[in-house]
């Protein structure tokens, strides 16, 4: 799993997660995302377009990030989940709070 980020504009940071988020890669993802939030990146778009698989460990991290950014009046958008990621969100009904956007562009636009 690889995580990279780039500043989209003054307010929004785009995070790309490539590969699988599972029991073993989740701690690294958690550390990286927490570091970003602590550095002041509190309006995030997490791009799952290249995320091949996400399990309940990964889902837990997304919830943790959502809670962390909301605490500091930020927010989180999930973009471009594949069928598997969408399935996990729907089976747990967590798509109600981690509402996925079909594309990165739509997720970014939602912050406007």
């Amino acid at each position: 799993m690889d995580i990279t980020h780039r500043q989209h504009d003054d307010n929004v940071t785009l995070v790309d997660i490539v590969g699988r988020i599972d029991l073993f890669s989740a701690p690294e993802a958690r550390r990286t995302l927490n570091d970003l939030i602590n550095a002041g990146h509190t309006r995030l778009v997490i791009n799952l377009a290249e995320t091949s698989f996400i399990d309940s460990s990964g889902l837990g991290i997304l919830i943790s990030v959502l809670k962390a950014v909301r605490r500091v009046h930020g927010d989180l958008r999930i973009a471009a989940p594949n069928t598997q990621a969408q399935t996990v969100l729907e089976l747990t009904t967590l798509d109600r709070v981690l509402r996925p956007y079909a594309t990165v562009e739509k997720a970014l636009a939602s912050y406007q």
Partner: protein
Amino acid sequence: MVLQEAGSSLEAMHGMLDCFWQRLGGGGVALDDLWRAQFTTAVAEIGTNILRHAYDNLPVVSIGLRLRLYADCVEARLIDRGRPYTPRPPAVPEIPDDIAALAEGGFGLTIACAAVDVLRYRRTTSGVNCWRLRKKLPRLIAPEGCLR
């Protein structure tokens, strides 16, 4: 069709599932992305559950996985010799009004249960944990005679 691999980690488990789907596709059993995603996710969640609870998150352990195609379903059996599992009824997470109160874990069995038609666990008298997952095949997906 039976594939077996012991001593697998999650990496091997995903590799084995990928291989299984390829072999089914090669045999004319066309399953759509959603169906495969649900079954793969359920198997992976049970594998993760074994690593977490039976082996305390050790990175490499011995898990046996057998995948089998039946006329009406696909079945996965996972076995391990870790600690026994104490089953808890899975529950769909509650979505509280206050996001701060939202649970960050405990979704694994919920996902697995919702993604397949049958999920069973038993501990044998010889100390083996046995998980069985079954998911019904969509009707009329396979060419006649392919499954028999």
